[in-house]
């Protein structure tokens, strides 16, 4: 089996699993307890908080653990809008993850105003559009770091500086960037940043929201005093430990990751584009995650190609797993190429740190065979 869907989820690293198991077996207490058996776990959670903070150049107090990226994204958007009732405007982009776009639409139904910035054919934003969109009542700009479907990178430094200069909060959904690219929030003035453990070999069901010191905050999930009053609910100790260890592994490997994965991704991409006719890359060729390749196969429906690839043992996807249940074509590729059928005829390959050149070569061959069959 060749797994090329690492942007959907990644296998748990063995070291992460080993670190989690004691907290599923003998150290199962409730961290909010006053006795040592439970209370000791508070320290364990703080170690993980430090590991996550180190991965992104934050202070541990700026990390709030959540049940995952969807909750973190929702929390950031709600917190920013609650901060100042006079500011009800959100700026986002047409290619955000569904957890940001749906949340914006839901808020729009309630009382917010939303501007959705377009992207060009390569998936890039025009900064001038962003500048023009920001107005006196803008509460928040929410833009992703790296696109989950195409891997295209937004210029987060310039976006952050622009937001800072205009006095507007900036939330960055960095789910696909963290673990794949160096992230240093000491030099990047974002106010909120979302990350998710299972995108970098941590467990499902846990993520974190970075909330910069001094940024306004209102909890989304209310209850006990956990997470210093910022997220109620008994802490999921094992998963938080897993996130912490995954963060540490990612930090140690992020430099080699890019070099290694980029070479393989380029080999896959060149292999497909050069040997299969009527194919086209979706997304800017350079300003992109090193592991992601989104390719349109003209005349070939995504579903059909994915089915044949699956039968041949290759796992890839047609975009966001979170929208796989819907029959809609990819909103990301459609935003880039609205006139074409590209959004229905594309496949996303997302490589991981364990992908091999043999897997890449095999995939190129299997894709070529499948496309030949489908094109009759």
């Amino acid at each position, binding site marked *: *089996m060749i*797994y090329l*869907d690492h942007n*959907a*989820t990644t*296998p*748990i690293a063995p070291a992460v*699993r080993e670190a*989690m198991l004691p907290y*599923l077996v003998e150290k*199962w*207490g*409730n961290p*909010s*307890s*006053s*006795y*040592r*058996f*439970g209370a000791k776990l508070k320290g364990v959670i703080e170690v993980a908080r430090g590991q996550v903070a180190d991965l992104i150049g934050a202070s541990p107090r700026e990390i709030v653990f959540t*049940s*995952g*990226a*969807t*909750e973190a994204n*929702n929390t950031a958007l709600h917190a920013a809008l*609650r901060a100042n009732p006079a500011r009800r405007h959100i700026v986002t982009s047409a290619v955000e993850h*569904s*957890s940001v776009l*749906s*949340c914006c639409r*839901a808020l729009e139904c309630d009382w917010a105003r939303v501007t959705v910035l377009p992207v060009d054919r390569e998936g890039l934003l025009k900064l001038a559009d962003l500048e023009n969109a920001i107005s006196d009542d803008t509460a928040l700009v929410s833009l992703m770091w790296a696109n989950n479907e195409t891997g295209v990178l937004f210029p987060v430094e310039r976006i952050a500086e622009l937001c800072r200069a205009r006095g507007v909060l900036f939330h960055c959904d960095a789910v696909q960037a963290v673990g794949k690219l160096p992230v240093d929030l000491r030099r990047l003035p974002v106010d909120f940043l979302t990350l998710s453990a299972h995108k970098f070999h941590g*467990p*499902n*069901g846990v993520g974190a929201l970075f909330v910069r010191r001094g940024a306004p905050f209102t909890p989304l*999930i*209310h*209850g*006990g*005093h956990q997470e210093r009053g910022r997220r*109620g*609910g*008994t802490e*999921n*100790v*094992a*998963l938080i430990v897993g996130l912490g260890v995954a963060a540490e592994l990612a930090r140690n490997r992020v430099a080699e990751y890019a070099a290694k994965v980029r070479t393989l991704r380029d080999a896959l991409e060149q292999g497909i584009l050069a040997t299969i006719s009527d194919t086209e890359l979706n997304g800017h060729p350079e300003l992109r995650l090193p592991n992601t390749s989104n390719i349109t196969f003209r005349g070939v429906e995504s579903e059909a190609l*994915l089915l044949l*690839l*699956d039968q041949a043992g*290759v*796992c890839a*996807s*047609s975009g966001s*797993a*979170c*929208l*796989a*249940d*819907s029959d809609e074509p990819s909103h990301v590729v459609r935003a880039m190429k609205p006139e074409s059928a590209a959004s229905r005829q594309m496949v996303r390959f997302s490589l991981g740190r364990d992908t091999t050149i043999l897997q890449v070569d095999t995939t190129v061959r299997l894709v070529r065979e499948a496309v030949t069959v489908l094109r009759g």
Partner: protein
Amino acid sequence: MAAIYLDHNASTPLAPEVLASMRPFLEKEFGNPSSIHRIGRAARGAVDSAREDLAGTLGCQPEEIFFTSGGTESCNLAVLGAALANWPQRNEVVLSAVEHPAVFGPARLLAKHWGFRLRICPVDAEGRVVLDRLAAAISPKTALVSIMAANNEVGTLQPFTEVSNLCAAADVPFHCDASQWFGKLPLPPIGLFGAALVTVCAHKFCGPKGVGALIVRSGTKLEPILTGGSQEADRRPGTENVAAIVGLATAARLFIKHPMASTPVLTPPAAKLRESLASLPGVRLWSPADQSLPNTVAVTVAGSDSLTLLAGLDLAGVCASSGSACSVGSLVPSHVLLAMGATREEASSLVRFSFGHDTSLDEAAAAAAAVADVIKMVGNV
């Protein structure tokens, strides 16, 4: 692990069978259930099976189950989701005075941001909701009634059948936070408490932390509190926590129908502790003798405070709590005891012992002896 763990209302150990059922999904079966390839489909199959399994255990339809990140999120989803689904035509929420912070928290948010009126229904000296007052609080403006099945701090069982009848007569959705019920008592004859919404929390019955469910009976209106992908029929987006969901279903199958800690097992040690503590000077029992969780013994100690008592007990090897673990960290008087008529001093000296299936008579006796020693020590200070 400390010598004697008497805090099973805070959390319980993960059962070995539950961990065994989870392990494949922490190892080879790592897929995202929304992915259409084989790795994804295997994960989807596991989530679907878990949902059917849990539906069978609870006697509801699989479509009525929504997996969440735990009891707190389930309560938030129930309270915010049901109240806002009926808003603005209905703008009042009725709660008992002894609900968990996971219910009070979102209820206060409804008041603050949407202008809801909170009608807090009083309880009697045993912590049981006063039905006349509840009936009087329900009106055509009521968007939701939220009354727990069993209280976490003192163990009092609520008259959910009567609450359900009142809600049905008024055509008002009833949320029952049953976090403390499952695993200790079997499903009642009425089934899922006669409620429109039921909160389930896995780590209270030997399942994993970080997962729960909200049961939403068909026909109940509910707004999601998280928006995003199309998971959980659009009501709870986010990549499913497959291992935890499988663990929840396994724990439920093992321990909900036939509680992990059955009443005949729990009653003798709990009775032993009650008896021993009742004879100590200054100790007052707050857990009712009847219609109460069989595992919970809550006491207050005159002239002392919870933190001192718990520290002493911890040193003596006894793990107990001052009530809701979700409320510790500061010496806040128990809102449950205050509602039951306790003074602030009393409500600040609550110690809750909650037994598990493996608590022995000897441990109960040892705990009683430790409490006696701690009280003497505190008295000497």
